[in-house]
Structure formats: C-alpha cells, structure tokens
C-alpha cells in the first residue's frame, strides 16, 4: 500500500477557535467548525493530486462534531426546544462524509469510524482490493475552550485534520511512501505511537527513511520512497 499524498494540519487554540473559512478555497453552505476543519485538511492533502470519483473515504474522529452535539443537547435539555434541523444534521457523524463527498466529487464507499488505526486497517483491505482511499483523522475542540480544558484535562487546546491518500502502486505516479508488514496486534502489546507520530515522520525530511509503527491493535512499517 502506497501513500501518494498527505497533510498534517494541526492548530492550537488560545483564546478562541480559529475562523477556518478564511483559509478555505471553497465556501460550503451550513458548514460549521468541524466541517471546515475537515475540508481544510483535505484541501491541503489534495493540492497536487486529483482523486478519481470512485475513491473510498474514511473519516475517523474521537468525538465527532462535538460542538453541534452540545448545541442540540442544550436546546433539548436546558432550553426544552427542538434542535435546529441543521445542527442536528451536522451532529450526525455520517454528515461529514456527505460534505466531503459533495465538495470533492467522491462517489465510492464512505465510512466514519472512531479511531484512525481502525480506519487504516479497513482502508488497507480496500487497497488490497485495488481501491484508492482518502483517509483522515479530524478532532475539533469545544468552542468554550475552558470547558475543553476541563473536560479533557489538558492545558493546550489543539485541533487536527490529518489526511492520507492511499492506493496500490499507480503506473506513472510517484508515491511518497510505502506501508507494509501490516499486522493486527492484541491489546496486551504496548502502544508506542500516536497518529501525530506517523504524520510527523512523513513531514520531516531529515528523519530516517523507514520506521516501524505500533498502535494498540495494529503495527506496520513505513518506508519513504
């Protein structure tokens, strides 16, 4: 399995979440922070590559569109109102697949999962079956940054939108790296890496040319091409 493009968008929120619309090439109706964060990472990933419409899409996220979910729960339980329809829609995890598919013209399979490593293994199966896959991890912060710090017990509030284009070997295209030796591990084995480690490795031109990665249930080797 080869990596043909990647992006490693990470930002730190200090006083408030950034206005991501300003950085996006295209404006999307009814897009909120989670949608814009997702699109921003993908725009960066696809700067030099055009995806076929049959490309499969995997989006992973720890908490999904957490701000829309909070708005709806506040409407229902604190204000005793019906949620705004499009807040409800944006809170449904599948909706982000729609926004991406619509914006980037994708018509393949679309899967939303909880972890990047589980998405990566499912993408690996697709690539073995000859498919190209756009796969990413998107974690947004709660707009109330103090609430975010308290809830997740962190001092620094970060958001991330990290993406890979994976494919079998493509004739006439230069791959950036190869992922091999993909194995499932049992949970007794220690987790050594985070998703950031993989993207930092890809981004850093000064590191070694290959590196083994160990996650909770998955291990693999990445070799830069």
């Amino acid at each position, binding site marked *: 399995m080869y990596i043909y493009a990647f992006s490693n968008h990470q930002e730190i929120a200090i006083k408030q979440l950034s206005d991501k619309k300003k950085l996006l090439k295209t404006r999307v109706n009814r897009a909120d922070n989670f949608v814009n964060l997702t699109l921003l990472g993908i725009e960066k990933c696809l700067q030099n590559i055009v995806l076929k419409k049959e490309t499969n899409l995997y989006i992973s996220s720890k908490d999904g569109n957490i701000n829309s979910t909070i708005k709806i729960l506040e409407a229902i339980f604190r204000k005793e109102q019906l949620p705004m329809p499009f807040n409800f829609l944006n809170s449904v995890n*599948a*909706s982000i697949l729609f926004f991406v598919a619509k914006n980037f013209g994708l018509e393949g399979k679309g899967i939303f*999962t909880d972890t990047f490593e589980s998405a990566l293994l499912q993408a690996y*199966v697709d690539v073995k079956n000859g498919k190209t896959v756009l796969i990413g991890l998107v974690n947004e912060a709660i707009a109330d940054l103090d609430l975010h710090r308290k809830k997740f017990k962190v001092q620094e509030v970060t958001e991330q939108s990290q993406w890979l284009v994976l494919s079998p070997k493509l004739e006439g295209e230069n791959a950036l790296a190869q992922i091999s030796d993909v194995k499932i591990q049992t949970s007794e084995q220690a987790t050594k890496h985070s998703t950031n480690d993989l993207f930092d490795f890809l981004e850093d031109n000064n590191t070694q040319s290959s590196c083994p990665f160990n996650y909770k249930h998955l291990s693999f080797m990445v070799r830069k091409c």
Partner: protein
Amino acid sequence: MVYIESYALSCALGKSTKSSVENIKEFTSEPSTLSDKNKYYYIDEHQEQDYYESIIKIAKEALEEANLSKEAINKIGLFIGTSSAKLPINEALLKQTDEMLAQPNLSELSSIIMNALEIKGFNTIISTACTASANALVQAKEMIESGLIEKALVLGIELFNELSIKGFNSFQLLSQDKIRPFDQHRDGVILGEGVSAIVLGKRPSAFEFIGGSSLLDTLSITSSSAQNLLNIMKRTMTKANLAPRDISVIKAHATGTIQNDLSEAQALNELFPNHPYIIALKPYIGHTMGACGTNEVVLLLEALKQNFIPKTLNFTTQSSDYPLVPLSINSPAIKGYYLLNYLGFGGNNCCLILKYSGV
C-alpha cells in the same frame, strides 16, 4: 465464502431472537406514546442504566451460539455499527448531573464491551447513521476475506435517546400513527431501540453472506436518490455474479417517509419489473437507525429458520406514484438469494445479499 454462524437480537418484539420472531406471526408489538405525542418502540423493561448490560448480554448470546473457544473470542474482530453510540448514556448523565457530554469519547464503548467479552483483537465503531451496522457487516466480511481476521462479531446498537427523536421531529419525519411502507398514505417513520449481534466466519451454515456494497450519495444530505439506489443494487449483484431474476426476496429499507420510499420504489421498479417478494420490517420494531442493519438481518434469518417470510404490516393503498405492493401475508420460506437495502442520512446507502440454503 463467509457465513452467518450465529446471531442474537433484543428489540420491541421481545428480548430473545426466537420470541421476537414468534411475535411477528401474531403481531404483538405496539409503540409507546411519548409525552410530546411522538411514538417509540421500546425494548420491554429496558432502563437507561442497563445500557452496557443490554449490549453485552446479546453479544454473549451470539458468541455462545457460535460455540467459540476462548482463544477464538480473544482474536475475533469487533465491528460495532451505531448511530447514537453513547448518547443514551450522556443524556442520562446530563439529566442527573447537568454535565454536558460527561463521556464523550466514542471508543470507550468498544473498550467496555471488549473487556466484558475478553476480546483483544481488532475493533472499530462504524457510525454512518442508518447504514452503520449494515456497513459494519460489509467491512467485517471483507476483512475476513482478506485473511486479516478469521471471525467477526458485528454488533448493531441503538438505544433510546431524545436527540434522535427530536432531530427527526425537527425535520418533520416522524409519524404519530403507523409506519406505512410504500403506502399512498405514508406519513413518516417511528423510531425504536434494538441491539443485535451476528458472528461471521467461514464455518458453513444455512446463511451465506454473499456480499455487500456501500456508496456515497451526494444528491441530498437528508434523502437518497433513486439513481444511487439503482447503482448500488446493480453493483452488489454484479459483484456476486447475480442478475435481478436471481433475487427471490427484497427486504426494503422502507421507512415510510415520503421521499425515501419514493426513491426506493422507483429504483426497485426499474431493476425488478417482475417484482420478487418485497418486505419491510420496520413496522414491527420501529426504525432502529444504526442498528437496523443487523436487527433486520436477524429478524429475517430467524423468520426463515422458523420457515416463513414475514408479511409487511400497515400497507393498505397502493401509491399513485409507483406500482409497488409489498408482501401482505406470511409466506413459506424459500431457498435462494435475499437482497437487503439500507439508506442513511448523510448520503450513505448500503446493499447486502444473503443466500438461504434451507435449515
């Protein structure tokens, strides 16, 4: 080849698979009426605090039925399909403590289930709205075929939460009367809760999982297009080397909503002009959203095991927009290919084909 080795279900029809399907023969499940006059299909006596207990009980039933060794359970792949995930827990905690999203992390759901069942292998939570557990079945099958895992436990989980009901209500998609699949007078869906478990593997059984496909549909974020449904059914049959004439029974998604039933009926009429049996199961247990994929597979398979194909409830008047009449009486089970459709919010459609070879 991948087979359904065992299954278990708890839904509004009953707390066991067998009793649920026996209740289909003499239909006894009725939705409850909520304080806002909307209706809902509850699992009997299920309480918010039973959340994990309800799920783990059904998963254990399926694992015991599959008769797996401890080592096989350790290595089994866990695929959870759910739309609301931990929302029921978070809503219950919000009512008690006023804390917003007390347990936000989605992955805790699989961690708790894995610890209880002693599963130590690959796990994933798939959250694609109403196609979630159907997609989980497709992903699990493909991973077994790839050789990465030998068996998979696929769970469909959807338990009562107000966010889903009020969200559907905000789009005026709820019926306050009945789910009337494909009927001229259909006026919406009634939601329900259900938990089901399916063990997939290579040990032959009466039910072969022939294949499945999932496609993004970008026509509308709230409803599916007839063209996409046509494409996905064709693709699933082509992958299985089947033609429309090979399909004996179609389990439609059939939510009873105006637009989705219209799209599905148009696609079915175009691809299957000589209709095979068309059935809808949501009038029995409500629309169980992310769990409807596995819930409706289990209901159908258990009905076949009990030697019948379930009739579709509440259909009285053929639509003036399309000539489609679902099966109106319970009919004897037939061996052959069963096609199952699932449509989801967020432009996500899924189609499965199962083969029944007789008990």
